């Protein structure tokens, strides 16, 4: 079925100081299709979408809507043209109600700008019903789960008479059940004639949902094809321009002596956690959201207060009451959210790399910058961090490279125990493999890793042992041989 | 766009540059008048008097003041800057009677005569630094306080409870008025000062402080405020307490608004200092000094008590 394109972006380029982010990209969107935008982190997907949604101005190129050239001046203008975006980080105001959020800035008013609360709620209820959602429109948004909040964003977009809906990694924070619900909504929207641009790293979703796919690589559009006519390996090849024969590296480490032991660890959210970790081992921690996995990492790292129990590092009982003490014990923590917890975005790559270990380069309170520079150079090389210089602000790096900077921080602090909390969230296939390889190399050097992850294939593919957590306790332990998706999932779900 | 801006800037500079020529020519003598502040009626009247004299005598008068009355540092900066601007003579109402001394020293060193207006310079501090002033022009605040005290004592029949609103402590003006008032009250032992608190020369603080005094001493019969602004604040506090006419209010400075209050009866009396005369005399004497004439080292501007009887005759 060939129809004239609803949207045509041709030869779009965008430059930032020192960076060519987009290089003559072509992109086309048909009426009522789900068009998946695929590419590694830093390939230019977000930049392209920000141009379409008016957040950025293009440096050159043409945008046509319904065959008419338009220049999108700002986000408001994009909205008026019927283009809405749902970002990864949702833009809702937690203290307002669902209805108020949906109509923020466009509240129906009776007279003298007194808001007509009833009309507001009524209109919101109708919109939500259309999406198959049965929540009370006057409920506060902060009470909703992430999936429901996303629905509110969708409803908001619909209320704007959206023709083009951009969704940036909508499933990254959703459970399996919620994803199904979201997909049902997307199909309904599609039937209603809305065109959807869908950005995702998850190839499975693409095949389940997409009509066509456009692959971006290094700021260029590599290919556009019908989903039905392509395959996973081909897409991966297009994205990274190399065949990925095996996602997970063959583990080479030999498991050595015990390095960390927890005995009866109890905090406000954890009960009686005991396990041990050995040199060269990857210990996977699986479990549903809210099972206490991040709390466990925080307890080991001295963020959560320990109420009972004991932590032993290399056989010695240690009281870890602050991150500083954890670091002194040789522990490094790669947090789930690198932007708010892992990095100081306004500081440079070098300054971030050395943040936990400035002491090493300091004498009499003064930082020896040459020594520091040498160390940073080493880690940039070792981790292949792509940055023009040490002085580059870390906020200018792509997501994958930022993650590597976080990793470098802990390498620099000479950690021997790494806690990875969702190490590959929001990271593309190529960078994922790179991170797995790094984990393998680290363990080969005798480092021990605790890996918290929601992606079962990753847990099963990388771990030597798997612990499953459920409501603040350890619900089961599996060796690499015993662990299967079914067993782990069953253990995590069991009431 | 950028070029246009630069062009405009250049034109502006050229235009102003032409104007600058006048500055260098001999012209009339440049006299600077530095007041405590420019946003208080007392000093506004002083400024008017000074400007009138300047116009009459053909003097190029520059009036400057700090934003806040008590900002001694800013006042010192202004004096320093005016010394740089090479004024011929300086008239100053000191924000602080001791803190002004370093500034006087600087003017002395630059050979610029200083006429002090309204607030006296601390004699000790001045002699310690071997500073010199050309003249002091002002009224006797101590005498004014005394006149107000005597009036109040007579008005209350030599008996009663009195409250006092003080100025900022450590201020020569306020301190002198206060001492004069206390001296007068001492003569009538049956008059009791039940409360004496600062309202920092300000009207809104006069309101708040007197409201608080009314809470703790509901039987207070009279209030003396060291300035009219504080007195007017007290008048409003009395009105808010629905006690208008029951409490005798005496102020100081004879501001236009205070005179009106005396006329209407919400205030009983105010001490007239005539700031306009001070400003006028200051500029006049500075001018005579520059012409090489001798001037008196101390010029007193007479004090007068304004009451309902004489308010209209002013």
């Amino acid at each position, binding site marked *: 079925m060939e129809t004239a394109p609803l949207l045509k972006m041709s030869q779009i380029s965008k430059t930032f100081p020192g960076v060519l982010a987009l290089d003559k990209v072509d992109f086309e969107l048909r009426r009522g299709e789900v068009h998946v935008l695929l590419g590694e982190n830093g390939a230019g997907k977000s930049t392209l979408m920000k141009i379409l949604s008016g957040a950025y101005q293009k440096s050159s190129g043409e945008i046509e809507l319904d065959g008419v050239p338009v220049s999108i001046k700002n986000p408001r203008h994009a909205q008026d043209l019927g283009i809405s975006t749902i970002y990864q980080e949702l833009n809702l105001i937690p203290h307002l109600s669902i209805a108020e959020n949906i109509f923020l800035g466009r509240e129906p008013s009776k007279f003298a700008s007194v808001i007509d609360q009833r009309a507001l709620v009524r209109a919101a209820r109708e919109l939500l019903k259309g999406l198959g959602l049965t929540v009370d429109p006057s409920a506060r948004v902060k009470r909703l789960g992430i999936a429901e909040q996303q629905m509110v964003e969708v409803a908001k977009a619909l209320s704007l008479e959206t023709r083009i809906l951009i969704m940036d990694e909508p499933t990254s924070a959703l459970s399996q059940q919620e994803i199904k619900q979201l997909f049902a909504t997307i199909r309904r929207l599609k039937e209603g004639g809305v065109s959807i641009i869908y950005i995702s790293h998850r190839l499975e979703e693409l095949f389940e949902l997409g009509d066509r796919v456009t692959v971006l690589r290094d700021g260029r559009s590599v290919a556009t094809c019908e989903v039905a006519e392509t395959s996973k390996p081909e897409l991966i090849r297009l994205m990274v321009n190399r065949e990925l024969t095996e996602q997970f590296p063959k583990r080479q480490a030999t498991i050595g002596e015990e390095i960390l032991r927890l005995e009866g660890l109890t905090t406000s959210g954890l009960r009686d956690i005991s396990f041990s970790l050995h040199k060269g081992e990857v210990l996977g921690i699986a479990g549903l959201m809210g099972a206490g996995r991040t709390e466990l990492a925080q307890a080991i790292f001295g963020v959560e207060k320990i109420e009972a129990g004991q932590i032993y590092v290399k056989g010695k009982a240690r009281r870890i009451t602050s991150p500083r003490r954890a670091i002194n014990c040789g522990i490094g923590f790669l947090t789930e959210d690198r932007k708010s917890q892992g990095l100081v975005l306004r500081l440079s790559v070098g300054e971030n790399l050395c*943040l936990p270990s400035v002491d090493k380069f300091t004498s009499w309170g003064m930082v020896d910058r040459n020594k520091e520079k040498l160390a940073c150079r080493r880690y940039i090389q070792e981790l292949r961090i792509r940055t023009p210089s040490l002085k580059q602000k870390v906020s200018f790096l792509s997501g994958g490279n930022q993650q590597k900077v976080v990793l470098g921080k802990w390498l620099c602090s000479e950690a021997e125990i790494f806690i990875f909390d969702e190490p590959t969230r929001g990271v593309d296939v190529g960078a994922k493999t790179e991170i797995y390889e790094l984990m393998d190399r680290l363990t080969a050097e005798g480092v021990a890793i605790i890996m918290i992850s929601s992606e079962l294939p990753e847990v099963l593919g990388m771990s030597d042992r798997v612990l499953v957590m459920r409501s603040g306790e350890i619900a089961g332990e599996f060796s690499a041989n015993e662990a299967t998706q079914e067993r782990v999932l069953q253990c995590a779900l069991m009431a | 766009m950028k070029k246009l801006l630069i062009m405009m800037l250049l034109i502006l500079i050229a235009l102003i*540059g032409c104007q*600058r020529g006048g500055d260098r020519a001999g012209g009339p003598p440049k006299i600077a008048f530095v007041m405590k502040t420019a946003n208080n009626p007392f000093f506004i009247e002083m400024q008017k008097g000074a400007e009138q004299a300047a116009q009459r005598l053909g003097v190029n008068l520059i009036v400057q003041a700090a934003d*806040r009355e008590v900002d001694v540092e800013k006042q010192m900066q202004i004096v320093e800057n005016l010394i*740089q601007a090479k004024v011929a003579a300086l008239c100053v109402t000191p924000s602080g009677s001791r*803190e002004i001394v*370093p500034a006087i020293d600087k003017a002395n060193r630059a050979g610029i005569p200083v006429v002090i207006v309204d607030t006296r310079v601390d004699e000790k501090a001045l002699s310690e630094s071997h500073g010199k002033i050309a003249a002091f022009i002002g009224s006797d605040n101590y005498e004014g306080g005394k006149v107000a005290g005597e009036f109040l004592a007579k008005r209350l029949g030599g008996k009663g409870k009195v409250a006092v609103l003080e100025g900022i402590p450590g201020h020569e003006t306020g301190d002198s008025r206060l001492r004069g008032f206390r001296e007068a009250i001492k003569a009538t032992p049956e008059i009791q000062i039940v409360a004496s608190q600062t309202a920092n020369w300000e009207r809104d603080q006069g309101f708040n402080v007197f409201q608080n005094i009314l809470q703790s001493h509901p039987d207070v019969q009279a209030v003396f405020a060291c300035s009219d602004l504080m007195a007017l604040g007290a008048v409003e506090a009395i009105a808010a307490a629905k006690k208008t006419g029951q409490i005798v209010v005496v102020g100081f400075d004879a501001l236009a608004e205070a005179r009106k209050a005396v006329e209407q009866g919400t205030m009983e009396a105010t001490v007239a200092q005539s700031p306009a005369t001070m400003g006028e005399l200051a500029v006049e004497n500075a001018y005579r000094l520059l012409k090489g004439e001798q001037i008196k080292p101390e010029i007193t501007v007479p004090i007068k008590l304004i009451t309902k009887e004489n308010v209209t005759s002013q």
Partner: protein
Amino acid sequence: MRPNGIALRQNFLLHHARQLGTLSGLLVLGLVLWVLTPHFLTLSNLLNVAEQATIIAIVAVGMTFVILTAGIDLSVGSVLAFAGVVMASALHAGAPLPFALLAGLVTGTVCGLVNGLLITLGRLPPFIATLGMMSVARGTALMYTGGRPISGFSENFRWLATGEVLRVPIPVIVMIGIYAIAFFVLTRTKLGRYTYAIGGNEEATHLSGVNVRFYKTVVYGLAGLFSGLAAILLTARLNSAQPIAGMMYELDAIAATVIGGTSLLGGEGNVLGTLIGALIMAVLRNGLNLLGVSSFLQQVVIGSVIIVAVLIDMALKRRGKYS
């Protein structure tokens, strides 16, 4: 990827573009005043302006540290007054000069540390903690002195304000020294690094093992220390320590910091900008006095300059001229 040399040089310019912008603002201001009045560009007037800038400039150093951590210190002016009267009464009590100076500096530092502890241990927002300290320090100074200024000091002490070395007033030399030290501390020491890191992302810094509470407390202590130092210079300058000294200095210090390009959100800026900011304010006041502009108009002009400076800064940022 581009060759490293070019990227680095570009980086240097990008890094300092903001300060260059402020500096050119100061130069333009100077140029305009030079045209408008013959009294501006003389050695004695320039030294005069520099001396007038010292008090605010020194207070603003502490303010810059605090604002870099994304905090604010409203108490600097009151702390200045308190430290001043403590030092002055020590002098009047016959204490040896170094001891009295130390008393002033310690008083300031202690007030600052209390601010820091209220913020870190007491978990008060900086605005509230320092607002409280502003009132407490002022009130204590007034009680301590009974509201009266303490004045009249030895020539030795007054030399701190009246002395000159090669015609340069001592306060100006002190100011330059302080800025050199502060620049060094911010760029080369651990304390400086952590100051930026805390302002950029406090949580990430904490999770990197930095004792955030300790360093924040130290930073507020520094603000108090600089207030104490400014108190010494101000007292020497006026030959009097007033309990009501330094009112609204906090706002001037914040203005100097912001004009100098330090972001109120923290993590961005440096002290060189602040020095230029303080000089701009002093030059502006000086120029307006020289020109005999009315004191009402002066307030309007100074306020407008602050707004315009920040507007230009933000416009440049949006255009991506520098980061």
